[in-house]
């Protein structure tokens, strides 16, 4: 099995540049991180972009579609969105975009708070080819193959390690 540490700060730089070039960036966007990994990534981005409004955090545990199968996540904490969602441009941040189910849950929760003007989806890493729902990120730090498993630890330091699954099996 090979383990590869990713240069997170260059990925974050890359994401910031892409975000700054988007039209919503001049319309005081508000950022939400998805607990836990997405929150860590969002904290970094929020700081680098020096956004005016404080960072929102959502915990999607209560919105998962597998509650009736696996039950509650014992580490669930309340979501905290400290401003109105209505008519705001939202930057939604996750660490890894994989099946799309987390994104679905996050969007449902956001819409329980209100109707945003837009949602821009940011993923530090995109595991392509394993999507189970029709979601694509607007801004991606880096694309990976579906077979590559990822371990994210944080918040300080934020470390992303890629574990090559195929080699692991071999």
């Amino acid at each position, binding site marked *: 099995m090979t383990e590869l540490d990713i240069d997170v700060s260059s990925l974050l730089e890359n994401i910031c540049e892409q975000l700054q070039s988007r039209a919503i960036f001049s319309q005081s966007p508000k950022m939400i991180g998805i607990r836990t990994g997405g929150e860590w990534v969002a904290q970094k981005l929020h700081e680098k972009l020096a956004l005016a409004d404080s960072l929102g955090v959502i*915990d999607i*545990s*209560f*919105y998962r579609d597998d*509650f*009736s*199968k*696996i*039950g*509650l996540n*014992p580490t*669930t*904490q*309340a*979501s*905290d969105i*400290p401003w109105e969602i209505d008519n705001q441009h939202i930057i939604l941040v996750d660490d890894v975009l994989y099946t799309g189910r987390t994104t679905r849950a996050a969007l*449902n929760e956001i819409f*329980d708070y209100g109707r945003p003007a837009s949602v821009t989806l940011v993923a530090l890493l995109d595991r392509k080819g394993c999507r189970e729902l029709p979601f694509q990120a607007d801004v991606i730090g880096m694309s990976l193959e579906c077979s590559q498993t990822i371990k994210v630890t944080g918040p300080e330091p934020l470390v992303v390690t890629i574990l090559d699954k195929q080699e692991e099996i071999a």
Partner: protein
Amino acid sequence: MSNLTGPNIQLNELGQLHHFLTIEGLKQHHLVEILDTAESFINPKTREIKQVPILRGKTIMNLFFEPSTRTRTTFEIAEKRLSAQVESLDIQTSAAKKGESLLDTLWNLQAMQTDMFVIRHAQSGAAQFFSQHVAPHVHVLNAGDGQHAHPTQAMLDMFTIRKHKGSIYDLKVAIVGDVLHSRVVRSQIQALSILEAREIRVVGPKTLMPESPDAMGIHIYHDMEEGIKDVDVIIMVRLQNERMTSALIPSEKEFFKLYGLTKERLALAKPDAIVMHPGPINRGVEISSAVADGPQSVILEQVTYGIAVRMAVMSIIMSNAAQLKQHHAEQEAAQASLNLDDPLTLDAIVEANS
């Protein structure tokens, strides 16, 4: 009442809550799980309790054989905030009047696709009785049975204490008033001792005190001043006139003189002591308005936290049911894999992993 004890009446084979009938027999981790889960429903900054979709498609039926305002309403709000379908039945005005037996009523309501019953009844042991007669997938929550137990009230009290004091551990708590008739106090004492409060005092006249304080791990005080001296928490309890069959106190006025919580008396407790009351409060009987509405009173917070705590209990029970089902599927898969020729093996494994 002793036949209501024992851990098995409300736990599933994994040792998790299946019903919630009493605090008695539960372990510290059960109570802490309820408190932690309740916390997750409350926004830490705004204290707002948001609606979440986890019990969508589940039906919860509230059966109140005894009147209630707070408990019934907070249960209904909690159920709705979990997105469950909610039906509330006022039994006094229903089939019971027409002579239908309790069990027939229960089985009919169960046949209406009910997943959970919330039951209040004047008879001690009523919730347990129901729990023994429902189908295996149906859950029963005790919302107060006679003088026996009121476990969700006790848990919301523990939650309120923990919010203010950080933990129950090592606290001195005084419970003042009609301890004898109170199912709330019975459950509170059990919860306080499981969560390792340092000292549990009960304060009141002899006629309203329990018979075996040592077995309950409590200290009895007949003198109010002595009883609340240096405590961290004062819990005032209502005089349960409806459960008193004989004259146990001379008069309400006399009771207030001896045991009413006034500003002067409150000063004897620790300066940061909190004052609690499960409601409904009788102003001027057990508590003065100055204290009930004063800065140390957390009485209305208790009501709000009651929503989060009841949401926690209901979601934990449904979560446990999901985990038990998963556990059974895995067991079946494991058993099937012992015989790989069995054509059901693959299906069972797929089921367990899906």
